[in-house]
C-alpha cells in the first residue's frame, strides 16, 4: 500500500487538520485504484487563493492553495467536500498521466486554460459517478469561459463529463473543436 503524506504536518495560518486531509486523501487513493501509489498532498497555507496542480505524477505530488479546500462559508476552516473534490480531481489527473494515453500531455504548468478546464470536466464527471457531490453547472461555466458560450462548447463539455476512458489526444481534440466554434469577444466600452 502506498503512503499518503500531507505537508505541512501542522498548520498555523489556517485551521486545517493534516490528519483529516490525509484521511480523505487515503480514502480517495483506494477509491481510485491507486493503492500502490505514494501520494503527497502539499498545502500552501500562506495564500487564500484557490489554484491546485499536479507537481509530479511519479511520485504523486499535488500542490493546493489553501483557498481551494477552505469552507467558503467559514474562513480558514477545512471543507471536507471541497478537499475531496480538489484532491480527487488531481489524483485522477495523476492516474491519467500514468497511463499510456496521456504520455504526450504537457505538464500542468504548460496546460492552456482551455485544456485545464477540459481535463477538469473529464475528472469531475468521473468523481460524480463514484458518488461524490459535483457542481456540474459550476464546471460547465468554467468550460464555457474557456471555450465560448456556444452549443458546440456545451456538447463537448457533455462528452467530457460522461467519458471514462479518454486519451490526451481525444481530450485535447474535444477542447480544440469547442474553442474553434467560439464567437470572438467584443471590445468592451469604458464605463
Amino acid at each position: 500500500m502506498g503512503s499518503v503524506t500531507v505537508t505541512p504536518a501542522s498548520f498555523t495560518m489556517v485551521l486545517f487538520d493534516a490528519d483529516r486531509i490525509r484521511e480523505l486523501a487515503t480514502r480517495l487513493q483506494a477509491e481510485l485504484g491507486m493503492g500502490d501509489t505514494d501520494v503527497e498532498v502539499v498545502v500552501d497555507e500562506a495564500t487564500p487563493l484557490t489554484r491546485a496542480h499536479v507537481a509530479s505524477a511519479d511520485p504523486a505530488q499535488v500542490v493546493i492553495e489553501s483557498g481551494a479546500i477552505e469552507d467558503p462559508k467559514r474562513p480558514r476552516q477545512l471543507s471536507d467536500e471541497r478537499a475531496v473534490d480538489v484532491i480527487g480531481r488531481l489524483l485522477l489527473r495523476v492516474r491519467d498521466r500514468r497511463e499510456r494515453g496521456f504520455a504526450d500531455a504537457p505538464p500542468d504548468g504548460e496546460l492552456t486554460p482551455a485544456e485545464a478546464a477540459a481535463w477538469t470536466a473529464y475528472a469531475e464527471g468521473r468523481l460524480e459517478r463514484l458518488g461524490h457531490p459535483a457542481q456540474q453547472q459550476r464546471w460547465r461555466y468554467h468550460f464555457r469561459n474557456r471555450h465560448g458560450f456556444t452549443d458546440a462548447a456545451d456538447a463537448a463539455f457533455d462528452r467530457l463529463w460522461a467519458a471514462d476512458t479518454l486519451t490526451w489526444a481525444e481530450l485535447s481534440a474535444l477542447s480544440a473543436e469547442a474553442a474553434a466554434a467560439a464567437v470572438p469577444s467584443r471590445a468592451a466600452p469604458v464605463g
Partner: protein
Amino acid sequence: MRKTLPVDDLARDERFVRVPFQARMSDPRQAGSGANRAAGRLTPDRPEAPDAARALMHGIFVGEIQALEGAGRTCWDFDTGAGRDQAPFELKLDMARQCWDEARHCEISVKLSDWMGTEIGEFSENTFLYEAACNPDPVLRLTGVNRALEGLAIDVFTTMREFGQVAGDPVLEYCEDWMLADEVTHVKMGSDWLRRLTATDPERQKQALEFQQVVDKLFSVGGFRGDDEESPVRLARRFRELAGFSVDEIDEIAEVSRQALEEAKAARARLAARTA
C-alpha cells in the same frame, strides 16, 4: 412593529452563514504570498477568474437582499416629516421604488447564480450593508448605503459587465447592464437627498460625508477597487458622474483606494521581511 431591526434579527434560512467583516480582515493570509498574484483586473483569462466571478456575484446577491431590507426599513423606521429624525414623504417614495428595484435584482441574481453554477448560500454573507442601513440618521443611511455601497456596486457591475463581454457571456453581460442602470439611479437618489436634506445644515452634511468615507475606505481594502491597473474592480468614473458624484469626490475615492493599496503592499513587505 419595532423600529430599526437589528442585524441579528434579519430573516435567513439555514443556507445562509454570516461572517463578520473583522473575520475576513484578520485572516493572516491576506498579507501572504498569494496577495500579489490576486492583484490586477479581474479578467476571464485569469485561471481563477470563473470562481472569483461566482464568489463576487454571490456577494452582490446578498448585498441586494440587504439593500431591499435597508430601503424597506427606511420607509418604516422614520416618521414622515422634515425633522432631523424624520424622512420626507418623497424620500420614502424613492426608497419604496428602490425596494422594487432591489427585489428585481434579487431575482436576477438568483437566475444568474443558476447560470454560473452557484448555489444560494454557497459563500458566506457579510452584513455590512444592512448595518450601514441601521444608522439613526436617514441622511447617513443614504450616504453609507446609496452613495458608498451602491457606488461600489456601480464599479463592480461595470467591471463584471466588461468581464461578460470579454468572455462572450451574454447572460452575465445583460444582467450586469440592467442592474447597473438601476444602481446609477439609486446613487443619484443618495446624492440628491444628501444635498436637499443638508442644504442648511453643513455640520450634518459633514457627518454624512465622513460616514460615506469610512464605508468607502472599508471597501477599498487592499486596493480592491480603484483607478489602478492593480485593482480588481475599476472606478466607473463616467457612471459615478451620472449618479451625482463630482470629479473631486471621485478623485477622493481613488486616493483612498490608492492609500489602501499602498498599506496592503507595505503590510506584505513587512510580513515577507519577518518570514525571511
